[in-house]
């Protein structure tokens, strides 16, 4: 496996690989999101209790799931950077943090805008909402630490430790609705077996979720490229690359 992985540990190869990947991810995501969001806004049926406000589901749930999966990916990258000193892992952790922060913010904002008409409040300090807010602070802490040091390796170490400590928050978010008496309801779509909703409501969700997921991939590719060239700016291949016209 190491032999197979070896070329991808080379910054130049990874840079070009990410560059080749990003248009595919970007266009596939644009396509899925267009179809998915139009379906969600215009054609998906309204919920019998929540009416049309149910359409917030199609942004809220995908971004909430992504906010946690991005954190998990970032923590795995941070771990491989700290333990096996994979330099590129550090670059990808730094690339993922701002994306995760944005999706956490979206989950919180759409949740508030959904909670106000349905529950009767924008915010309640229940375990699910509070732990998701902590996730946002963890992301902001990781971003701050990445930018706090001029030495990128030092920065990566500090941010990586915080990212790893914060992993404890992930099971808390996931199981908060079962462990505590929360206002937030249990999981709808990640239940084992059939999702707790009709299929004409479920399919637009699948498209939106995949669309947002691929968007994360495309943005991560660009940020990863940025991290690679700033970390390797003394290398001849980077110098040739930036002075040439092609991207």
């Amino acid at each position: 496996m190491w032999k197979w992985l070896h070329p991808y540990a080379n910054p130049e190869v990874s840079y070009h690989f990410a560059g080749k990947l990003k248009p595919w991810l970007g266009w596939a995501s644009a396509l899925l999101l267009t179809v998915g969001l139009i379906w969600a806004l215009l054609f998906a049926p309204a919920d019998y209790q929540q009416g049309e406000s149910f359409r917030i589901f199609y942004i809220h749930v995908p971004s909430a799931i992504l906010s946690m999966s991005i954190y998990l990916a970032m923590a795995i990258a941070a771990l491989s950077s700290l333990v096996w000193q994979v330099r590129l892992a550090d670059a990808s952790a730094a690339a993922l943090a701002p994306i995760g922060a944005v999706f956490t913010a979206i989950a919180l904002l759409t949740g508030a805008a959904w909670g106000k008409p349905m529950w009767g409040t924008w915010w309640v300090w229940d375990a699910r909402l509070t732990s998701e807010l902590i996730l946002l602070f963890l992301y902001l802490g990781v971003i701050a630490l990445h930018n706090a040091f001029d030495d990128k390796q030092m920065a990566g170490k500090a941010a990586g430790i915080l990212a790893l400590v914060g992993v404890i928050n992930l099971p808390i978010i996931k199981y908060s609705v079962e462990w505590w008496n929360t206002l937030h309801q249990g999981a709808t779509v990640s239940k084992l077996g059939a999702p707790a909703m009709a299929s004409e409501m479920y399919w637009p969700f699948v498209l939106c979720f995949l669309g947002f997921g691929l968007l994360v991939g495309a943005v991560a590719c660009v940020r990863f490229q940025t991290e690679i060239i700033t970390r390797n700016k003394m290398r001849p291949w980077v110098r040739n690359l930036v002075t040439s016209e092609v991207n």
Partner: protein
Amino acid sequence: MQFDSFASFLDMGGYGFYVWLSFGASAALILLLIFSTLLSHKNARANIARQVKREQRLQQAQAQAEAEAEAEAQASVSESTSQ
């Protein structure tokens, strides 16, 4: 199609404010993320390119200065031999 007119689509069964607030804020945040990502990539490339150019100019200037110094030295050598 769940809506019979554009107005009822905007109204979202009375939840228009909340639905459009959610979709609008999410779109704004995602566009901000995409643009800042592209911008910082462009800036990173430009910064490195500028640094490379500066170093090249420095090298050229140094090479020129060395060449001039050498020429001067040779001139003074040839002057002293001709005397």
